[in-house]
Structure formats: C-alpha cells, structure tokens
C-alpha cells in the first residue's frame, strides 16, 4: 500500500485514453468507480522504447494466467515495470486483447465524433495508437495489453469465458513502479464484454509515493523468479538514465 498521500488524482471517463510517464517508486492506484470497468494498459521503457511489456514472459515466469496481488509485470528484457502490491479484485486479464474499430461497430454500433461529440464510441486499439504515437510509437510497437478489472477464464478444453461480474464499484488495484515507465492506457470496453450497450465505466487514477520494495516484500518473494527479476531491475536502475 501507499505510504504517503496522493499527490495527483485523475478521473478518466469510460471510453477514453491517456498516457503518462511514471517514476520508479510511485504507486498508481486504479479505482473502478462504478463497477464493471476495463482499463487497457501497455508499458514501455521511456529510455528505450524497444523495451516493452511482455505478457507471455510475465505469465510463464509466475506460472499464472491471471494477474493479481503478488504478481510482477515484466518487460521483454527480464525487468519489472511494476508490481501489484494490492488488489481487491483477484483477477485481471492480459490475454483477451483489445477492442478495435470494427469490433465496436459490429457489437455496439459506431457513434461518430461528428454526431455524438464526447459520447463517441472509441476503441482500445486506436487509443493505444494515438497515445503511443505521441512518443513515436506505431503499430510495430504494440504488444498484448493488460485489461485491468476484467476476467477471462479458461476451462479444461481451452474455452475462454468473460466474467461480467468480476469487478464491483470501489474495486482497486495498486501498481508500484520498479523502474521509470511510460504507461499508455484507455478505458474502452473489453473486447469480450457482452454488454448490450457500449460500456462506459469511469476509472480514478491516484498517484502516490511508496517506499522501495524491502527484502521481505510480498511481490519480490511471491516467486523465486521475481527475486531474480528484482535483481535485474535494480542493476538497470543503478546503471542507467533511470537511476533515482
């Protein structure tokens, strides 16, 4: 949990996008204000944009399909962008992918900006392209994203099921950043959400400062792999432009 007061809070309406660079040692709390939120998120190293969030590396080194408290989110370079230090939800998805313009149009109908102004139906894929483009990123830089607050479970035969009741009003997840990280995010619907109407769940983003992970830290010790991930990240932090 955060040890200091919130220094910034931002409310992001449903169906919108944003990006920010987060310093190591900052805790980013996402709050599902009304329940049923989805926050698509991608992570990059601002000093080397070729280093990006890698969902398969994250899942296999922690032998998990879901993300929750105790898990770390890895880059493709064996380092940890952030650790999930608290989670009131229990299951976040990183395999369901992203909504696209075609999917939104087919599922919920396209509402243009011309006719609906801020009520237009944006999609996750284009949101990442817009936010990433602000830093020189393009289609080639995309990766499998996290879908905070969303649950996709898998049965024995491999079938995937979306759980509409996964996240309730007030649910939150705390991400402690272990290295400086460029965060791209959107609040567009999960691509498997079966809702009849285009979902528009607002999310509050609260930033605060945390103490550095101690040797008995939950995330560092939840898997022996994470101890090594923390060593890699610490080495990087002490040797590069990311030094704090």
């Amino acid at each position, binding site marked *: 949990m955060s040890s200091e007061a919130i220094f910034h809070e931002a409310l992001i309406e449903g169906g919108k996008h944003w990006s920010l660079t987060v310093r190591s040692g900052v805790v980013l709390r996402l709050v599902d204000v009304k329940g049923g939120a989805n926050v698509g998120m991608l992570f990059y190293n601002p000093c080397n944009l070729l280093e990006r969030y890698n969902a398969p590396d994250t899942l*296999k080194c922690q032998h*998990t*399909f879901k993300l929750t408290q105790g898990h770390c989110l890895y880059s493709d370079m*064996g380092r940890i962008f952030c650790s999930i230090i608290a989670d009131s939800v229990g299951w976040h998805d990183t395999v369901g992918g992203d909504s696209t313009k075609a999917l939104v149009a087919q599922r919920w109908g396209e509402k243009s900006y011309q006719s609906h102004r801020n009520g237009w139906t944006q999609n996750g894929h284009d949101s990442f392209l817009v936010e990433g483009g602000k830093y020189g990123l393009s*289609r080639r830089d995309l990766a499998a994203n996290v879908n905070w607050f969303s649950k996709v479970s898998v049965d024995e035969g491999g079938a995937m099921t979306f759980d509409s009741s996964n996240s309730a009003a007030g649910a939150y997840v705390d991400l402690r950043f272990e290295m400086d990280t460029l965060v791209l995010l959107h609040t567009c619907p999960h691509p498997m959400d079966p809702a009849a109407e285009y979902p528009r769940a607002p999310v509050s983003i609260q930033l605060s400062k945390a103490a550095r992970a101690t040797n008995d830290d939950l995330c560092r010790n939840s898997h022996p792999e994470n101890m090594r*991930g923390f060593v*890699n990240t610490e080495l990087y932090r002490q040797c590069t432009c990311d030094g704090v």
Partner: protein
Amino acid sequence: MLRESTRTPDSARFRKVILAGDYWVDLVRKGEHFRIVDLEGNQAADTLLFSAADPADRYSFVDTLRAQRNVFLSVGSRLLSTAGNMLAEIVADTVGRHDTLGGACSTESNTVRYSLDKRTMHACRDSFVLALVEHDQFGLTKRDLTHNINFFMNVPVTAEGGLEFADGLSGPGKYVELCAAMDIIVLISNCPQLNNPCNAYNPTPLEILIWGP
C-alpha cells in the same frame, strides 16, 4: 483435433531441416501449404508470421485466441493479424494442440525463469534477432518481434487461473500444416532451450516442407 494431410513429401517444392538453435525465415505465397515436422518429438517451433505486403500487420495471439474463443491452436485455427486479417489457417495437425501463450525464450527471461547465471545461454529471441539482421531485405528489426506460436508445446490453463507447462502431446514425426491466406513472411526459431524439461533438455531438429498452391 487431429487431421492428416493428403500432401506427400516427394511433391514438396521446398524441404529443409532446421537444427536446434537455428532459425528459418522466408516468404510463403498465398495458397501455399507449409508443414513443420517435429522430427524427434517434443521440440518447440517458435513461429512468427507477418503480412509480406504490410509487415506491421502481423500475427496476434490475442486476436487469434479471442476470435476462436479458445487458447489452443489446432486444425481450423485461423491465425489472425493485429488488424484482424487471416494470415494462415491450420489445415492439418497430427498433434492436436499447440501453445501460443508461452512466448519465446530469451537470454533475459532465462535469467528470471532459471538462474541469473544463464544469461549467456542461447535462446529463441537471439535467433529471431539474428534472422532479421541477416535478412534485412524484409525490413524487420527487434521492434517487430511480437508474441509467437509455440508449435508442439502444451500449456494448459487451470480454472483457477494457473498456467502449466505439461508434457507435450507431440512425438517423433508429428507435424502441423498451414495454408497461407496471403503472402506472408514466416520466421521460425528451433528452440535451443536447455533448461526446460518439456523437451527432455534435448533440443532436436525440425523440418520445413512447402507445397505450391
């Protein structure tokens, strides 16, 4: 789902054995069939596909899995790109199930998964990078290395959200065959991993065969 191909090796236009730790990258034309054979069994063929006309449009495991609502690849799986275009379809498979959740090994992920002193051991993503540098006519770089398919690997998901690395369902001579739905660049690393029991710590050769449309 199991389905054998009607194509015979003697009619293939191209055959090549990829040794463990090597890569193969080439253009496969629309309508051509290409087969990957697990010559000795339980080897991993780490595979990436790119649209030849627009390489930024490339294989996307999340879009592929979501469209078929299932995490395993087999006969009938349509391998989709980020933009939702079909790159290829699996048309024959004598294994029954292939993974696309586990990604490719790298020297960096080896330090996390196994031990910090494994940092210099050979890994698939080193093969991918070398393939792209040695074949720069495709215009691809590390930037284009996205999440891959692991043909012949078996990675089940539990109902509780765990990920398992189970014994492979593959065996000597088993294969998977794909039909290209457009001109595609196929990039394969024959996995050199020496730290994982899934291949009995013994990486072995694969064979590629291509038939004209």
